[in-house]
């Protein structure tokens, strides 16, 4: 895969500082001097991903001529929902398909999607992405599974055999875990499962390893065939992890980590820290984001996601199970 283009990223940074008024204000407040900082990407401004929650219309220009609005599911207790205004939906289609096919070429894989609860969110970027993948299949093999009675038909299995394709079952983690535990869906043994989204609030929180073990056992496929997708409504790009625990970004995306509470520090390698991202697919909103996730980034730029960052001390007495 081609390397991340830092010069391009710098041009986009300059453009977004000029055209995204809030990001521009943020950069000014940090006294960011673009002439001095040049290509030291870690010296650039990275605004908190919460900007998509706190600022309605967080994009370059105004909210006229919008292709779509993506909204987060808003699953945490006091959450406002993040809103990502998409200037050009075709751009999202192009980036998401490219990122997916780089890992799961069209000629080799057929995709079925199982997205309970996400379907209740008409502004879900994930559902839209799956829609694009499914519609992009001229053979009509790709499809959404029936949420009430998910089944892989004999017809579909025959199609897979005829086309020499493997099945990719792409689903919300909590929904797939439900199916796995009930052994409710049979899939070919060489299938790939891509889980996404964690357990949200639907079930008791499980680690990624636990999710993968349950899926491997429940669907009777090798553990190494359980993959994962990292995405969110605030990012138009997705990263994929293909069984080794490390997510890999598409060429126009880069993730790095910094120590906690050190938002200007140099990136750290192979150490737990807060994740930051440059996503050039976010060309009409903001590409330079501080995420609310913690993880580890290795020398190759691949990363692990290890939960949310430890939250800032909240007010009031609060009995916390984890600490007590």
């Amino acid at each position: 895969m081609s390397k991340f283009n830092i010069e391009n990223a710098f041009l986009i940074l300059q453009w977004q500082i000029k055209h995204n008024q809030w990001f521009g204000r943020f950069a000014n407040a940090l006294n960011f001097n673009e002439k001095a900082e040049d290509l030291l990407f870690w010296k650039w401004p990275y605004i908190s991903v919460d900007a998509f929650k706190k600022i309605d219309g967080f994009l370059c220009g105004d909210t006229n001529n919008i292709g779509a609005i993506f909204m987060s599911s808003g699953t945490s207790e006091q959450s406002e929902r993040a809103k990502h205004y998409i200037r050009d939906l075709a751009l999202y289609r192009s980036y998401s398909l490219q990122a997916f096919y780089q890992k799961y070429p069209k000629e080799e894989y057929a995709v079925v999607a199982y997205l309970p609860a996400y379907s209740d969110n008409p502004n879900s970027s994930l559902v839209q992405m799956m829609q694009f993948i499914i519609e992009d299949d001229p053979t009509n093999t790709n499809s959404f599974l029936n949420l009430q009675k998910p089944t892989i038909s004999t017809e579909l299995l025959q199609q897979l055999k005829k086309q020499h394709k493997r099945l990719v079952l792409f689903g919300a983690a909590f929904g797939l875990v439900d199916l796995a535990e009930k052994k409710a869906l049979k899939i070919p043994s060489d299938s790939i499962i891509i889980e996404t989204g964690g357990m949200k609030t639907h079930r008791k929180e499980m680690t990624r390893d636990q999710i993968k073990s349950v899926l491997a056992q429940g669907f009777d496929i090798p553990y190494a065939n359980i993959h994962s997708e990292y995405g969110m409504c605030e990012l138009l790009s997705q990263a994929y992890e293909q069984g080794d625990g490390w997510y890999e970004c598409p060429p126009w995306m880069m993730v790095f980590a910094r120590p906690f509470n050190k938002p200007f520090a140099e990136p750290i390698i192979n150490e737990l820290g807060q994740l930051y991202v440059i996503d050039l697919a976010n060309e009409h909103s903001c590409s330079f984001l501080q995420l609310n996730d913690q993880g580890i980034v290795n020398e190759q730029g691949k990363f692990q996601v290890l939960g949310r960052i430890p939250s800032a001390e909240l007010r009031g007495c609060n009995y916390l199970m984890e600490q007590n």
Partner: protein
Amino acid sequence: MQNKKLPLFLDTAKVEAIQNTLLEILVNETSLLFNELRKAVKSTVQEKLFSKYDVLFALAHLKDQLEKGQLVKWAQQTKNSISDSDKLLSLGSIANRKNVALLAGNLPLVGFQDVLALLLYGAPTCIKLSKKDPYLISTLLNVLNKNGVISNCKWGLSIADFHDFEATHWLFTGNQNNFQKVKTALETNKVIAHYASSLVRKAGVSIALLPSNYQSLLNNELEALATAIYQYEGKGCRSVGIIVYADDLALTEVFTFLEQNLSENNAARPSEQHQYELAFLTACGFEARSINGKIYTNDPNAWQKADFISLICEKDWQKSNIPLEKIQSIYSISAHLTMNSISTEIIHEPIEFAQKPELFWKADGIDTLEWLINAK
């Protein structure tokens, strides 16, 4: 009534015994009991659980309240409230009751008021101490127990310590998110019975009212405001996290007032994290200043983090949509400068009481001892 086991608080001698034993620990520096407390303080500070200043502040306040006889007063006023013979007759026997309290541990001695209420009630009790504050309350309970002024009270750091206790009533501070998780853990371990009644404290922050003629505030009133904001790093529910200022004040004026009166002379530059937060607030269209380690801002949601103080104009209070159940107290900064209250539902107090409340103050508006008496 002769066959009923009645709550301890009805027996003044027993209440005095608890009060006097606690005073012995806190006041008599030559006593061995005091030494035990000194060790507990040392361990707490050495393990960096809390600052020495915060621990001594909390202990000094407890001592002050006990010296004023507030424990006996609490028992007496509760007794008076049920002195009507019918109420006394209908007072439930404590023989059928078992109580559990889970302490949060985010401040030194936090939850000790609930512990005292449980001791005054006198039924079999388990106190789940926090790993964040493991020494102070356990030392006080240890001494009370060794001196025979309390009985039927167990305490420990793990829920498993109270396996099979099957409490009928339990207390804790939390929110909707963790209540179910905690309840399930307690039921699984049979610490509480499945039908147990709970008292859940939810309030997380208090408000200070800044009147328009704030220039007349006295030094002690300004100090009380500073203590209300900064004591315990602003973490407790009685700490001021929101300042509601009079309609005729400009935000810039409020910032100037705060900078002039709350800055320390040798204030350090804001931390990296605070510099970042200030820039983010600016980006979002809010005004913000860093003053003595806290960020003051007109973002009405900022107060949720202990490092932030929200500044809200009185006329914008309704728009801020801050749930009243989150508010513990509303403080007037001055007795002689008044301001309209923003809510009649919340307890109002002078700001001097913010971090030094009376022993029997009502968290979330509920007297724990009264709750124990009246709870089914």
